[in-house]
């Protein structure tokens, strides 16, 4: 039944595609004319949308030409290499039509009809509207063409089998443009569209199953594939759910990279720098309104267990951590983990510190880092990298300590956890 109706849909789509293709060649003829105001307006809108979707984040290698691709994404399924999406005829998408682009974004199919691997997040991009897709395409067409041939993917068998990909799509890919929920505000709908569609937050903030598929469109957090960071749940009040935050605080974190309670690091800092800081006030507010609505309230979550009396052994372990804290951390983060708001994040009550996987906090200690430089925080203070100065045992002790001091509650961390948290794409 499903197949039948799909076949019918496909044939309807073919007709639409043909008609659209015809229209498109008209559009293309028109674009040979001098650019009109509406064309430049479309390009400008496309540039903004490409920022919001952070296309550049994947389609640019470190220090490389913008949008010329070549960035390697390592996943359990093999290594994907992002393609060149500048309008170069040979190595980029210079020969693509607007329809080809729509096929890729909306249906996850390449120009030659092959199914694309979902490393390209068409599972989210399918929600993008046609006018937005056209604007992004117009912008990409306006870029200088860059001749850059990127190495091919190295996909591990059996995942290189297109039949398997076909099945994957049948199972996990739901095609369809975002449909606004009329019972919700315009802001909420805009936020939903940006978070679930163009912004493809799901690509990181959701657990993936063994087939690499997002488990659902719930932003329940997960280890980032091809990265070394954990993307926290945007629902859970124990992780990064923001139902209890004022909208202004959410806006501040997303647009400047830091607020009084939290600071972005790792992959999220990069997203703030490359994308979110450039979003309009309305859009970033919409995202905040939507995210706030997603979060579970504290009361919904399991009530925190009553603090049991700590065994003596644990207490000794944490006391060692406290010594490390006093020596290396206290100067900036304070005697009571209070930090200095918007400069050095507080550790007391900081969910990045206490949340279940200690990965991010361990990495913050090992590698340090500066929060993203943004218009709202152009000269951030930073965290030193301690990997050469504190041994794994001491890092385990101090992380265990801050996860359990000042009212915090978190599992203890072992030196093995510290070692397992190493690694970078550099």
């Amino acid at each position, binding site marked *: 039944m499903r197949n039948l109706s799909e076949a019918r849909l496909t044939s309807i789509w073919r007709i639409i595609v043909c008609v659209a293709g015809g229209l498109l060649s008209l559009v293309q003829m028109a674009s040979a004319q001098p650019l009109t105001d509406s064309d430049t307006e479309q390009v400008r809108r496309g540039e903004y949308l490409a920022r919001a979707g952070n296309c550049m984040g994947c389609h640019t290698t470190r220090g490389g030409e913008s949008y010329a691709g070549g960035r390697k994404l390592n996943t359990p399924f093999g290594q994907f290499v992002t393609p060149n999406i500048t309008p170069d005829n040979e190595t980029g998408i210079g020969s693509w039509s607007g329809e080809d682009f729509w096929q890729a974004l909306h249906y996850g199919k390449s120009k030659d009809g092959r199914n694309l691997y979902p490393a390209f997040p068409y599972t989210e991009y399918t929600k993008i509207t046609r006018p937005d897709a056209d604007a992004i395409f117009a912008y990409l067409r306006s870029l200088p063409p860059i001749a850059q041939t990127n190495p091919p993917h190295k996909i591990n068998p059996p995942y290189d089998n297109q039949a398997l990909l076909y099945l994957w799509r049948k199972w996990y890919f739901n095609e369809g443009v975002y449909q606004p929920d009329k019972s919700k505000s315009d802001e909420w709908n805009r936020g939903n569209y940006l978070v679930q569609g163009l912004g493809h937050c799901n690509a990181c903030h959701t657990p993936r199953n063994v087939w690499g598929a997002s488990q659902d469109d719930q932003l329940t957090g997960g280890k980032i594939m091809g990265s070394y960071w954990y993307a926290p749940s945007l629902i859970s009040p124990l992780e990064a759910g923001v139902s209890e935050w004022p909208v202004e605080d959410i806006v501040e974190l997303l647009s400047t990279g830091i607020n009084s309670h939290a600071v972005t690091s790792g992959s999220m800092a990069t997203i703030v720098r490359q994308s979110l800081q450039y979003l309009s006030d309305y859009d970033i507010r919409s995202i905040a309104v939507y995210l706030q609505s997603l979060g579970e309230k504290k009361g919904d979550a399991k009530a925190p267990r009553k603090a049991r009396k700590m065994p003596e052994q644990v207490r000794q372990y944490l006391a060692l951590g406290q010594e490390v804290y006093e020596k290396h951390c206290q100067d900036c983060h304070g005697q009571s983990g209070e930090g200095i708001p918007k400069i050095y994040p507080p550790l007391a009550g900081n969910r990045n510190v206490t949340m279940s996987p200690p990965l991010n906090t361990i990495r913050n200690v090992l590698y340090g880092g*500066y929060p993203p430089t943004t218009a709202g925080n*152009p000269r951030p203070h930073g965290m*030193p990298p301690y990997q050469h100065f504190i041994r794994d045992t001491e890092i385990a002790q101090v992380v265990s300590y801050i996860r359990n001091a000042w009212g915090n509650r978190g599992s203890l961390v072992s030196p093995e956890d510290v070692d397992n948290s190493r690694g970078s794409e550099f």
Partner: protein
Amino acid sequence: MKFFAFILLAMIPGLASAAEPSSSGLSDTLEERVKPCIICHRDADRIDRDAYFPRIAGKPAGYLFNQLRNFRDGRRYYQPMAILLENMSDEYMREIADYFAAQPYAYLEPVVPALTPDEIKSVETLMYSGDPERDLPACGACHGEKLMGVQPAIPGLLGLPHAYLAAQFGGWRNGGIMRGQIPDCMSEIAKKLTQEEVNALVQWLPGLPVSGQSAGADALTPELAQRCRTILSGKEVTR
């Protein structure tokens, strides 16, 4: 006009030092902001002689700025720096580079090298005369007569730990330091040196005391400026 600009510039450090401590008691200074740098590139008196980390205080600002960008953009490979700088703007990097360039040097006491007189003679020839037969310019021709660097973008060679120097030579010879920079003048030079010469150089250099300033830009001959133009302009390395 120039005079007014000078006055304005002269006022900037004054403003910075006059910065009121914030309500948190933290003074709003660059010194506070570069704490993550200081943990490794700290004062010489606190650094282990066998440490890897180079002196950055007093190096030419253009050199420091280029290195910061190179680390961030993957042209110079060193994981800790790449992670630290991943999301930093050019403007902020420029400010940090200027800050360290203006710091009085903190340097290691010279270590008398364990080299034979022949080895010392061969190193000194490379340093001050080069080897025209192998098209090797004198080290001092680019790094300044005093080996304290040349403004704005060539580093000084003194006050650097042996381990760091050895690693850099290894990097240059494997082409691993400045990937993708053509012409890559230092890589070409390092590849022409023998292993014995490299070993002697990295022992000899820490034997010299740090003194004096980096030389002015006019210290470089036009020929060498051309040969090392990518390093000097930084232009061909911008995104």
